[in-house]
């Protein structure tokens, strides 16, 4: 039988101990904000490197030449964008929205044929009209189209008329700044690190100095003990969340949205990583091993799950690999809600996260032994 009174009483003792320990408080609340300030300062001012632009090349070629490829290759060489050609035949606008991307270029099927035969053909530039990058990309594409047009006429004497034209299509995805990704990323970071490190530490320490044994002599159950830790980290996570939100929006003008859809992430996340920390701390033989195992799990996850930069900027194979990391679903979910307004995507993240969390929680409670045999 779970007793709320015992959970509350354990929660009280634990949280008081936590608040009295400035170290834990620093890492739980202040450190992520410091990271926001540091990374925000480094990457503010627009020098954000190359932007990824997705391209759909439907060009079937003509006379052994695929000028669509040539056009995209020329754009890629400019160094301003990284043009990523995707192999899809469906609605490109939808694809971009799915990818939470706004910028894209679509080359039609008859591109080579039209160009070579001098027929007018349009390249479609997808973008969010409100975003600055959209305008820049349109400008660039226009530039390259003119360049191709001039090439066409450079060896003839016909009066010039534009062969490659431009049409624009609007994608309803907001173009984001680095800080917009950074805030959910670092919220994910604090959801991961604070409960995980703390529980690895506590559980291996308590095991070593026999505090668990001692608590087992009271009516407190191990489930109640773990629950009170989880509750505390949920409280801490929510506090940290608002702090980061405020710093991000007020100090760095981040465009991030608040929504009740965030609650599942702020609850499931700490529950997952507190349980995972508990599991590592319990299974490991001593606090030293526990610390090492904890780091081995935490650090790659931190870097690969989109904490410090959006996952879409990573190579495809790493993006795929990231799907096995539990933190990925936290970070992606937070991004979907706060940045991309992609609530359908967020629901999937919540579902995956809930399953992982329940599995890890059950494993942690099972593996965790009060008494010895």
């Amino acid at each position, binding site marked *: 039988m779970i*007793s709320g009174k*015992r959970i509350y009483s354990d929660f009280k*003792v634990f949280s008081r101990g936590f608040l009295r320990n400035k170290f834990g408080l620093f890492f739980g609340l202040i450190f992520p904000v410091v990271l926001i300030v540091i990374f925000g300062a480094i990457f503010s001012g627009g020098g954000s490197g190359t932007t990824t632009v997705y391209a759909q090349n439907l060009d079937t070629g003509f006379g052994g030449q695929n000028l669509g490829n040539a056009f995209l290759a020329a754009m890629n060489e400019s160094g301003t964008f990284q043009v990523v050609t995707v192999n899809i035949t469906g609605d490109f606008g939808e694809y971009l929205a799915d990818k939470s991307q706004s910028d894209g270029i679509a080359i039609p099927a008859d591109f080579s044929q039209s160009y070579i035969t001098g027929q007018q053909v349009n390249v479609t530039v997808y973008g969010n009209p409100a975003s600055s990058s959209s305008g820049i990309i349109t400008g660039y594409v226009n530039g390259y189209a003119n360049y191709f047009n001039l090439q066409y006429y450079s060896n003839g004497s016909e009066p010039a008329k534009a062969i490659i034209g431009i049409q624009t299509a609007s994608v309803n995805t907001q173009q984001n700044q680095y800080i917009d990704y950074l805030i959910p990323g670092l919220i994910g970071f604090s959801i991961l690190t604070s409960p995980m490190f703390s529980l690895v530490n506590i559980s291996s320490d308590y095991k070593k100095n026999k505090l668990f044994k001692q608590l087992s*002599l*009271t*009516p407190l159950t191990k489930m109640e003990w773990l629950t009170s830790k989880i509750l505390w980290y949920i409280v801490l996570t929510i506090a940290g969340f608002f702090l980061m939100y405020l710093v991000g929006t007020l100090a760095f003008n981040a465009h991030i949205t608040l929504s009740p859809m965030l609650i599942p992430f702020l609850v499931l996340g700490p529950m997952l990583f507190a349980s995972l920390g508990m599991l590592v701390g319990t299974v490991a033989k001593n606090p030293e091993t526990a610390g090492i195992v904890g780091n081995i799990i935490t650090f790659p996850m931190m870097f690969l799950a989109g904490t410090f930069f959006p996952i879409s900027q990573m190579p495809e194979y790493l993006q795929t690999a990231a799907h096995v990391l539990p933190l990925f679903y936290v970070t992606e979910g937070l991004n979907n809600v706060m940045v991309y307004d992609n609530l359908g995507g967020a629901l999937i993240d919540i579902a995956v996260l809930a399953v992982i969390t329940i599995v890890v929680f059950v494993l942690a409670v099972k593996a965790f032994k009060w008494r010895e045999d």
Partner: protein
Amino acid sequence: MLPIEVSDLKKNYGSLKAVDGISFSVKQGEVFGLLGPNGAGKTTTIEIMEGLRERDGGDVKILGLDPWKNGYDVHKKIGVIPQEFTFIEKTTPREAILYYADLFNVKCDPDQILKDVLLDEKTKTYFEDLSGGQKRKTGLALSLVNNPEILFLDEPTTGLDPNARRAIWEVIRNLKAKGKTIILTTHYLDEAQQLSDHVAIMDHGRIVAIGTVDEIIHQYGSGERLEIQGTEKLAEYIKANTELEVSYDHTRRTITIPLKKRIDALAALAAAEQSGMEWGEIQTREDSLDDVFIKLVSEPLGEQGETAIDSGKKRRR
């Protein structure tokens, strides 16, 4: 029904027989001391009684209950200080007591408990900042929160300075005076002698002696003897000129003569005087619990045990 009944208790760790078929019982209101060198099986025994470990064989009844199967009920009625008691660092003794009171769902007066364990001046200090003795007292305080019928104290004074040890003893005596049944493990013989009504000496998982301290000394000790500081020559002289049994210890330069009757001492001293040889200090002594302990415990003691066998009165090296 006795509060504690243990019969033929067995516990193995792999091939090691940590507890090898021990039996004893403890009466209401008694202090029972489990003595033994490190690794004798004391902690395993006490942890099985507390329901922290499962036994491999035999029977254990704590207040009529099986402590492993009915741990939850047993724990409500017992108080425990584990060996090397520790607690949540940033918690004061007073908060710790209130926390335990919540967990046990009992009402208690933390100030009274702190007074009982002589800790009422340190109520606002965090556990991590307390001295070793104060930490143990906190442990004692916590073990009292649920007003237990039985207290299990596993080496409650190990590693403490003499003053802190005496303070803990005082607390234990007060608890005994209140009618608590107390099980105490220790490797300090003086502690067992000072506090226990009955002691059991354990070695290699077995009980090698059990009873009151006097009974054990009487049963296993060698009785009164005369010791004279002197040379081996003098020992030989006494042996030749009396009918007494005489032995000589080279390292201590001591002649030892067991006294069947007290008057034998006079004969020995007369012979010594007659010899014209020099002799030093004389004393009569009886085997103490130390002597008996060393006789009974087969293996040489480990580092910790060795220093622990100081009885406070005499040092044996």
